[in-house]
């Protein structure tokens, strides 16, 4: 008799219910393994998202026992309290079906925060010399490894309470660009993150930093944006 795991999976869209499955418990097993087993052996109609399954792409992020995590990097033994697991789609995002959340609002806010590089030179100009250990480049490098998995966005209470809030990921990307000396779009970017729903909405709960699988610190990045926008505002560069 193999030991089994009792797994609740969200089935449905915005409306739906949790459905319970019994899954063979293995010695080394990730939550993604569990979801995959259900889809392949019990119910082929289960919808979920994954790609690399080795902790590089962030596609498999889901809510596991109430916390947003990368399911491919979450070992069942670490989270299955009393042999039970509850898995749902990422919070704070619309549900497409079952375990797949609609990432569009997340990426729309990325654009709203002007998380896009604005070039300042042409190929005819000399290459910008950037010291890798300079303070601005260090700040940018500390913020740049975001792979847009959405875990921070799902963990953030301010996102939950304030539908206008751009969220930790979009603001962290804006911060990395604000520190990029090649970027020419900073006035517009600072204006974008200084508006309602921008960096000033952050309450420094640090849930983003606590949950980020890349060990990023959006709270610190957002604090940096608060300093830069305040200076720009007081100098009259933004309104």
């Amino acid at each position, binding site marked *: 008799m193999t030991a089994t795991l009792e797994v609740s999976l969200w089935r449905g869209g915005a409306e*739906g219910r949790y459905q319970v499955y019994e899954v063979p418990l293995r010695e080394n097993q990730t939550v993604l393994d569990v979801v995959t087993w259900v889809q392949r052996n019990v119910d082929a109609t289960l919808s979920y998202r994954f790609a690399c399954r080795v902790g590089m792409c962030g596609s498999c992020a889901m809510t596991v026992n109430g*916390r947003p995590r990368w399911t491919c990097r979450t070992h069942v033994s670490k989270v299955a309290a009393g042999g039970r697991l*509850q898995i749902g789609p990422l919070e*704070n995002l*619309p549900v497409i079906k079952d375990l797949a959340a609609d990432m569009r609002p997340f990426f729309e806010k990325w654009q709203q925060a002007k998380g896009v590089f604005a070039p300042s030179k042409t190929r005819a100009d000399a290459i910008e010399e950037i010291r890798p250990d300079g303070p601005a480049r260090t700040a940018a490098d500390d913020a740049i490894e975001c792979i847009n998995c959405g875990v921070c966005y799902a963990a953030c209470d301010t996102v939950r309470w304030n539908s206008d809030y751009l969220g930790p990921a979009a603001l962290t990307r804006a911060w990395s660009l604000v520190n990029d000396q090649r970027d020419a779009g900073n006035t517009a970017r600072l204006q974008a993150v200084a508006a309602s729903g921008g960096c000033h909405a952050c309450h*420094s*709960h640090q849930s983003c930093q*606590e949950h980020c699988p890349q060990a990023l610190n959006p*709270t*610190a990045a957002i604090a940096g944006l608060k300093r830069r926008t305040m200076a720009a505002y007081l100098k009259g560069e933004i309104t």
Partner: protein
Amino acid sequence: MTARHFRHRRDLGHRRSVLWVAALVHRLSGLALAVFLPLHFLTLGLVLDGEARLESFLRWSDQPLVKLAESGLVFLLLVHMFGGLRLLVIENLDWHDGQKQLATIAAAASAVIAFIFLVRVF
């Protein structure tokens, strides 16, 4: 756009995090102070009806329950101010780790001072 459409068992894991509680304490203490302030101002304004009115209020406030409430107010004021100071440091100076410890120290210091107040007024 934000949707929390589905219900799931809430693991209070990150709800119980020190910094989330610190933020909640900061918000609730601010709200309590905002509700208290008009009452405080009205009490002081009693002087406009004559010194005796304020004096009789001070007599009334001499009872243990009121003194306890006053200690509570001192705690709320201090915890809100120290918590806010922690935020001002995060937002205006370079990042420092150890925010959980700082938040705990802020709350502890406020409690200690409020307790000293309580002991002194009894």
